[in-house]
C-alpha cells in the first residue's frame, strides 16, 4: 500500500526535477558575484548549512532583536548584507535586489536575489529591510537625497542587462 505511494512520490519528484531543469537552464551570473562568493567561504556557518538553513538563523535572530533588543550578532540579516552584498555595483550605483521596482523582477547580481530567482522562492525580507550595506556608525544615506535619487537610478539601471 505504501509502496504505491512511495513510487508515486518518487515519480513526482523526479518529474518535477526534470521539468524544472528543462525550464530554467540559466545559471546565476558569476562575474559580479565574485566578491560575494569569495566571502561566502568565510561565512559564519558552513556553506552547506547556510544554503539550507539561513532563513532559520535569520528568523531566530528576528525575535531576539525585536523582543530582546539583541543586535550585532553574526546571524542577523544586516550582517549577511554587509558581507555578501558589495556597497555598489560596477557602475557605482547601489546594488539592489530588484532589477525593476515596478515589476518586482529580481536582480541576479544581488547575492540573495540570484539564488532566490534561480530557486523561485519568494524573497520578502527586503520589502522592509535594507538590501545593501550601510556603514556602521555613519548616518545612512539620508532620506532627503537617497529615496528620489535611487528611484531614478533604478529606473535607468533596470534596463541595463
Amino acid at each position, binding site marked *: 500500500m505504501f509502496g504505491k505511494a512511495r513510487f508515486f512520490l518518487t515519480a513526482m519528484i523526479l518529474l518535477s526535477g526534470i521539468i524544472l531543469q528543462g525550464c530554467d537552464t540559466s545559471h546565476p551570473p558569476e562575474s559580479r558575484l565574485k566578491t560575494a562568493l569569495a566571502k561566502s567561504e568565510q561565512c559564519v556557518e558552513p556553506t552547506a548549512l547556510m544554503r539550507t538553513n539561513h532563513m532559520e538563523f535569520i528568523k531566530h535572530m528576528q525575535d531576539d532583536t525585536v523582543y530582546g533588543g539583541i543586535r550585532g550578532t553574526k546571524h542577523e540579516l544586516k550582517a549577511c*548584507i554587509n558581507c555578501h552584498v558589495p556597497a555598489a555595483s560596477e557602475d557605482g550605483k547601489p546594488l539592489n535586489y530588484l532589477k525593476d521596482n515596478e515589476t518586482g523582477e529580481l536582480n541576479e547580481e544581488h547575492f540573495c536575489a540570484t539564488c532566490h530567482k534561480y530557486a523561485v522562492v519568494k524573497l520578502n525580507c527586503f520589502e522592509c529591510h*535594507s538590501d545593501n550595506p550601510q556603514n556602521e556608525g555613519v548616518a545612512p544615506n539620508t532620506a532627503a537625497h537617497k529615496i528620489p535619487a535611487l528611484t531614478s537610478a533604478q529606473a535607468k539601471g533596470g534596463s541595463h542587462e
Partner: protein
Amino acid sequence: MSNPQNINSYRRKFMQGIGVTAAAATLAPGMLLREVQASNKEGYVTDKVRWGMLIDTNKLVEGGQEVVNACKKEHGWGAEAHSNERQKASWVRKVTVTEKTTGYVNQLPVMCQHCETAPCVDVCPTGASMKRADGIVLVNKHICIGCRYCMMACPYKARSFVHESLFDQHADSPRGKGTVESCTMCVHRVDEGKEPACVEASNGAIVFGDLNDPNSNISQKLKAEDGKQIRADLGLNTGVRYQGI
C-alpha cells in the same frame, strides 16, 4: 493589567492558550518551538529599565521642527513617492496649541508616547503591536497584518500605515508596504547605548533616560520640576513627558 514583564508573559500566555489547536500544531511545529525557545533568553532587555523622554518645549528652538527633521533623517520616512499628504508617514509632527480662552500659543513635537498601558498593544489582534520589557512600544512588522486597528485606538495619532512599496530603507529602520509604523524611540540606538536621534538634535531640550532609576537625570528632573502627559486623563502613564505645556 499592566504587566511590566509583558512580552515574556504574553508569549507564554498565548502559547498556553493557542498552542493546543491542531491547526497550529500541524501548520508549524517549528514555529511554535521557536516561540518557546524565545522566552527566557539571556541578554534580553528587562523591565528593570523603563526608557522615557522629557521634552522641555521652552528650550526647543524651532518648536519641534528640529525633532521632526532629525527623525526623518534617521528613519527616512515622509518621502513616499506615490502617497498623498494624508497618506505619507508621520512619525513625529510639530503641533501648535492655542489656548481658547487666553490665546496662549505653544508648540511641541508629538510622537508615540510609549504608554505603559498602550491602547495599540491591547487592540492588536496578532500581538504585532507590542511593548518591549523596557517600555518601548514597537510594531513587530513580521507579524503585522495591516488591519490598522492600532491606528484607530491611538489617542495621539502617532501611527502611520505604509501605503506603497518602499525601496532603500535605512539599515536600522526597516519599514514596508502594508504595515503600520511609528516612533521606535530609536530602539536601534538605545540598544547600542546611544540616545535617540531627536534627543541628540534637540540641544538639551529633550532629556532621555531610565524612568525606573531614581538617580537618572530624567527622574531627578521630573521629581524636581514635574512633567506633564498629553491626555493624562486617559491614565496611560506615558513614557514621554513634557515641560512648558
